[in-house]
């Protein structure tokens, strides 16, 4: 079979469990978690690829892949189903030499798919994670990588010093070349946090993946093993500064915040943007929404297929939701297919897909005086019975 040679292909790590999203990822892989009314998290890196001219994407799945695989399908929503483009789902598989099985780490996941990458003889491989919300032109990063003749380029963003110890920190020389990588350092030397976006020269990465697999003590992880090994071998690694919006939505709090940051007249993350950075999603044939005279909506996004009879303030109402008469939704993320029955009150909450809040039930409430947010969460398909209460910070 003929495969067109590609200058750049992308490998998207989408196998993580996302256990910190708790009930939201019990039955759903993190990249398939709904976001922003009509999207799923994976739409962001996938659309970024397409908008950056990358038409070949390998998607590494492992945890709860059913919904995610179904969602990606043949890649048609992102235009990745053409003759020389693809969105290829790559689950773990069994091989004759036992060098296979579950993906042991991020590097091992790519290692197990060397054959897939080799088909396209790429010069560069972009490695991405499926759990970040941002818009980025990877083509500009690849060009930067090429201009600096680096073996690897890592996207970095400036984080506040007090938060730096939560990230992988890259210490750089004045020319932005990297001399040290520290995973979650106790005493960070810089505030250049890795965004988990890498560009590699494929021939070099390939060599290092094979060597890493031979090392029984390796965690087979990009941050812990591959990057330090490349540095140790004297390769040139560059940091690529990115100052746009970027959010790791790995926790309930950050997922809620990232949704809230879409709102407002001048939102922190302007999802509307221009055509060239458009985020595409699989479409579900919902009709237009109906907004009843009894309703009141302000400072909110409402996607298609909704019927709104109640009050919605500063919230995201996703595809196919109903908000009944007299119901109030405030500061909340309502995922697709949710029904909020008349008289129910929802505040500071994330309501999982297809969950139902029955008549006069109450979800969440005001945040306490302490800094800690208390988001109430319902799992996919959960039902909160009539006249019952889900306290702030509780999960159903």
């Amino acid at each position, binding site marked *: 079979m003929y495969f067109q040679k590609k200058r750049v292909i992308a490998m998207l790590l989408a196998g993580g469990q996302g256990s910190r999203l708790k009930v939201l990822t019990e039955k759903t892989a993190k990249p398939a978690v709904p976001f922003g009314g009509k999207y799923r998290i994976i739409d962001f890196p996938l659309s970024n690829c397409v908008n950056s001219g990358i038409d070949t994407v390998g998607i590494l799945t492992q945890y709860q892949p059913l919904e995610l695989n179904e969602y990606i399908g043949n890649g*048609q929503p992102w235009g990745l189903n053409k003759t020389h483009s693809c969105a290829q789902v790559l689950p773990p598989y069994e091989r004759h030499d036992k060098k296979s099985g579950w993906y042991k780490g991020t590097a091992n996941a790519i290692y197990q798919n060397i054959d897939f990458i080799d088909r396209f003889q790429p010069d560069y491989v972009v490695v991405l994670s499926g759990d970040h919300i941002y818009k980025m032109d990877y083509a500009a990063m690849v060009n930067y990588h090429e201009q600096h003749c680096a073996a690897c380029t890592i996207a970095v963003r400036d984080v506040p010093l007090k938060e730096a110890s939560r990230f992988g920190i890259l210490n750089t020389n004045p020319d932005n070349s990297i001399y040290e990588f520290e995973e979650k350092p106790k005493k960070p030397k810089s505030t250049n946090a890795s965004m988990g976006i890498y560009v590699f020269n494929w021939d070099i990465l390939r060599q290092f993946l094979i060597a890493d697999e031979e090392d029984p003590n390796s965690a087979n992880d990009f941050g812990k093993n591959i990057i330090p090994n490349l540095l140790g071998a004297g390769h040139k690694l560059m940091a690529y500064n990115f100052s746009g919006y970027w959010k790791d939505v790995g926790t309930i709090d950050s997922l809620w915040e990232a949704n809230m940051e879409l709102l407002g007249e001048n939102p922190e993350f302007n999802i509307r943007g221009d055509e060239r950075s458009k985020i595409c999603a699989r479409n579900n044939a919902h009709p237009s929404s*109906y907004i*009843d005279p009894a309703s009141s909506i302000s*400072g909110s996004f409402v996607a*298609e297929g909704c019927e709104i009879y109640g009050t919605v303030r500063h919230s995201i109402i996703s595809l196919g939701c109903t908000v009944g008469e007299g119901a109030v939704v405030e500061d909340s993320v309502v995922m697709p297919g949710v029904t909020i029955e008349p008289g129910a009150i929802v505040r500071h909450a994330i309501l999982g897909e297809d969950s139902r809040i029955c008549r006069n039930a109450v979800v969440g409430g005001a945040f306490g005086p302490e800094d800690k947010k208390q988001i109430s969460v319902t799992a996919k398909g959960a039902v909160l019975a009539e006249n019952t209460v889900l306290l702030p910070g509780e999960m159903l």
Partner: protein
Amino acid sequence: MNVMGIIFANDATLGALTANRTMASLPFGGRYRQVDFALSNLAGAGVRHVGIVTRHHYQSLIRHVGSGEEWGLELEEGGLEYLTPYASSSTDTYRGKLESIYSAMEFLKTGPEDELVVMIDSAILSNVDLQSVLASHVESGRDITIVTKAGIADGVKQLDLAVKLDDKGEIQDIAVDYQAPSDYLASMDIFVLSKKWLIRQVNEHIAHNLYHMDRDLVLGLWQKKAITINVYTFGGVAMFNESVGEYFHNSLSLADSYIRRDLFGSNHPVYTKVRDRVPSYYGANCSIDGCTVADGCMLEGQAYNSVLFRQVTIRPGAKVENCVIMNDTVVGEGAMLKNVILDKDVVVSPGTQLIGTVTNPIIIKRGERV
């Protein structure tokens, strides 16, 4: 059962709204084109072999429907074909449905010989279960099945084709281009017939310079007792968008939840071309009441009892009431609009006032600045 579909894009009868588009490509309901309903009815019944007959201004239609992939018609075999006047014959534009089928005979002859043909129009919108219509046709053993709707004939509206049944459900009268009284059933311009029979009739009719489906084939043969007809009465919502007044009324009637649920979900989803707009944003001081709203809108003013298509902007202080506002139109600060249909890409300058009537809405043409 092998089934093929023929969709008629229809002549334009909606004045300025269809000056440059077919009835098939007229936007409807916030996110659709009228042809989406016919295509989705066929797709919902598993029909994978569809021709669209169109005679002029079909550019916007082709741009919208494309290869038909949204309706599962992007196929190697069968799939979707456009049957335009110059596609296969040297005839001028078509005078009637039979003539258009005659010039698309090559298309009709592709596929299995024992196929049934569903003929369906794009100006009458419904969510009809064609599987049930097809089953009724086969069970009846008759030459043709006509899908009809009660309650449309009112003695005023001129119907293309109307039938009156007797107590036993048999046809008592058939009328064409007739202001039928209310005891007539209106044809929804959906017909089922066998391909073999259709080909034979088309050849016979064209040979005798007859080209009108309703007048020549249905009425003419019935009067000669040369056709057996099965009348299928559809119980759901059927929107006859055959005049500006009807289009306007039917658009605003989407605020009725019964109508909405029947039209968009009674049998199958209605598919349309994907546009990937963001969800609509409702500003801090907006007031949106009784509206049908698609994706991508930026709503900062007031809208009452209106249909807002994709990417419509209502600026602060603007007020629209009983309006149909198509894609990408911007209503400026402080503008006041009542009973207005705004086509795509219109810009309404700040402070503009436009007031039409319910029976005679003002139409602002595509791309105009007012």
